[in-house]
């Protein structure tokens, strides 16, 4: 990509103060070396963050199913004489599993995630016996503790990805089941998990189940979080129930109660503005959303806010296009390359 700022900097700053950053040209497409693999993992993650899913998928294809022999330490004994096992970072494996779903092939994502889940469970049971895969010496008790925590954490992350893929496939009931399975493993996140399950039931149209889950989420149990966080979540859940029932003013009241506890919460401000719109006050909604967006960039420059704002601009006047363009200077000043410009709705 042509970067005029980089050229200017290069022209005006002395060579010694320049850092050499790896660019795409400097990383060879060969498989030798852990460092390069770690960099590939980072590159692919960044491509996904910038929503360049197709490019990431194409580059990931070169690595196949991540089981090629040259991805293992044993293949590179001249570099790593003592190490055994796969060189692929776990995050990269998770990304490899998530990618097909991001370009529409949800079934392949599910297959890969299930396989990854199975692998994690196998490693976990090995660790619990006191061993690591590919290593003959048993683990010390301290190491075993660390390994068990690590692999439990990884297993949890795989399950979250599974639930996300199921939601993308609109198989909400199955996603709720996956979250239910996580309740036991993550007691500290019990209230948060129950809230997500309730929200998915609202998406399905099932109000009684949602309300049951929300009231369970209000129980204090093993939650280590503060009272305030719990109250905010309770208000948000109540607000969403009111949105379900079209009780727009009650929904606004719920979100506003939460806002008093967290005055800088942008989500709450957005939701209040959305309720205002459904009450019929288009101009008021636009004023509220604009206020939030311009209030404190860059943190307030949210794609979610801009998407809602541009939808209201389209409705409000024929000069929506120029209003959308007026955000470009602000965006240019504050946001990075990953910002989805599609949220401006420019055609």
């Amino acid at each position, binding site marked *: 990509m042509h970067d005029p700022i980089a050229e200017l900097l290069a022209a005006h700053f002395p060579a010694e103060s320049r850092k050499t950053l790896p660019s795409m040209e400097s990383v060879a497409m060969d498989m030798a070396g852990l460092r390069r693999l770690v960099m590939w993992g*980072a590159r692919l993650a960044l491509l996904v963050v910038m929503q360049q899913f197709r490019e990431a998928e194409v580059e990931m294809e070169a690595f196949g199913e991540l089981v090629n022999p040259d991805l293992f330490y044993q293949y590179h004994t001249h570099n790593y004489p003592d190490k055994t096992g796969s060189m692929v*970072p776990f995050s990269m494996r*998770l990304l490899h599993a998530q990618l097909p779903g991001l370009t529409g092939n949800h079934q392949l994502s599910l297959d890969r995630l299930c396989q990854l889940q199975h692998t994690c469970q196998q490693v976990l049971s090995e660790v619990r016996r006191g061993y690591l895969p590919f290593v003959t010496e048993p683990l010390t008790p301290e190491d075993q503790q660390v390994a068990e925590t690590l692999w439990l954490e990884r297993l949890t992350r795989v399950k979250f990805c599974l639930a996300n893929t199921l939601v993308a496939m609109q198989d909400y009931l199955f996603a709720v089941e996956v979250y239910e399975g996580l309740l036991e493993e993550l007691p500290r996140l019990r209230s948060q998990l129950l809230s997500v399950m309730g929200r998915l039931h609202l998406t*399905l149209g099932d109000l009684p189940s949602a309300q049951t889950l929300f009231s369970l989420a209000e129980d204090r149990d093993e939650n280590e979080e503060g009272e305030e966080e719990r109250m905010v979540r309770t208000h948000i859940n109540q607000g969403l129930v009111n*949105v379900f029932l079209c009780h727009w003013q009650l929904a606004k009241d719920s979100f506003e109660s939460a806002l008093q506890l967290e005055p800088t919460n942008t989500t709450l401000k957005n939701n209040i503005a959305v309720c205002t719109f459904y009450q019929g006050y288009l101009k008021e909604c636009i004023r509220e959303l604009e206020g939030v967006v311009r209030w404190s960039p860059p943190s307030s420059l949210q794609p*979610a806010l801009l998407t809602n704002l541009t939808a209201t601009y389209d409705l409000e*006047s024929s000069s929506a296009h120029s209003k959308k363009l007026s955000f470009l200077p602000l965006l240019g000043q504050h946001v990075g390359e990953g910002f989805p410009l599609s949220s401006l709705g420019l055609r």
Partner: protein
Amino acid sequence: MEGSVPQQHLLGLKVMRLTKPMLSYAVPVLGEPWDMLGTTLEENLSQDIRSPRDLPACSTGETLRLPMSFGLIFLGETFNGFISVHNDSQDVAKDVAVKVELLTPSHRPQLDPSACEERIISHEVKELGEHSLICTASYMVFATGEEMLLRKFFKFGVAKPLDVKTKFMNIEEDILLEVQIQNATPTHMFLDTVTFDPSAGFRAQDLNTIRTNNSEVSVFGKDNLLPPRNIRQHLYKLTPLGPLQTSGVVSNVQVGKMDIVWRSRFGERGRIQTGQLKATLPPLPQLKVTVVESPGTVSLERPFRITLRVHNGSGGPMRLRSVLEKHPGAGILWTGVTGKVYACPVHNELPAGGSMDMVVSLLPVLPGLQSFSPLLFVDVLSNQKKYHFNKLGQVFVEIQPPETLSSA
């Protein structure tokens, strides 16, 4: 949604369908602390309000999104639309009046004549097919005094949300109704209520609950969700309140209608009522014979007795002669005198509407599940009219253990 706008209008008119908002979604990409990117990814994700703040690995957020497209609308749902009339020109428009009409496939009801600039309209969709929303804004250009009329058309189609099929089965005087409901939409449906409203001549019993000790539980369990294209069957027993059946077949009897209320995506409510469901009633049998007493299991080659109840459903009296038939290979044989005229209550006649019981002897000759042999009744009074009864009932014939046979 836009139609074509002639350039000389001062005003613009837009309509947006108010489907329910959706929850935001994010694509969580997370790393481990020792990865090259360290905690950068987590920090980046925590800034985005599309991701839930308290569960970063989860893709379902808590931020509401306005609807991006018209979506689908189904019969029974409510069309909510936001109408915006705006003046983007430099001139003043006076006396702005907005009229909204909905042209359905059958007729043209008027919705809301008003002079407001922004308006939400609401209309419960009651017809299938293509609908047209006609918005007319009439105004006067202040500068010239010219009267202008801006009209825009917005078309949308209404599809069928449910496929309803019915099956009737007649059990004596009652009718069993099975209603099959299929979700024809692409999203889940939460069935709020499914009720059957019987028509005036019937009483309906809902057979979709299981009665436990203290309460009634639905046959479908706690789950009231109907996934897309799935089918659910509901069962009702209908009892006629008065004598409906005659000697002939009665068809197209209106038994009642179904009333179904559901909720779908984030609370979109829908309700439909079917038309009157029609059943065909069979004619009342003139002579009815039922087994009122019979053992379930009998022993091979040991005679046993059953009690039959004979009911005269015809309009006049009958004098019945029974003919005990035997077919070759039958497993159970009648024993007794055939061709006998049965002793009836009144003058050897069975009056209209009357019943009598008769005890008959039988002998099982084959083991296993056996049916009774056919029975023929001849009505002496009505010109030897014959009534044949083939499937009176069954009984299980056991083979006796060998020890008990050696007593002889």
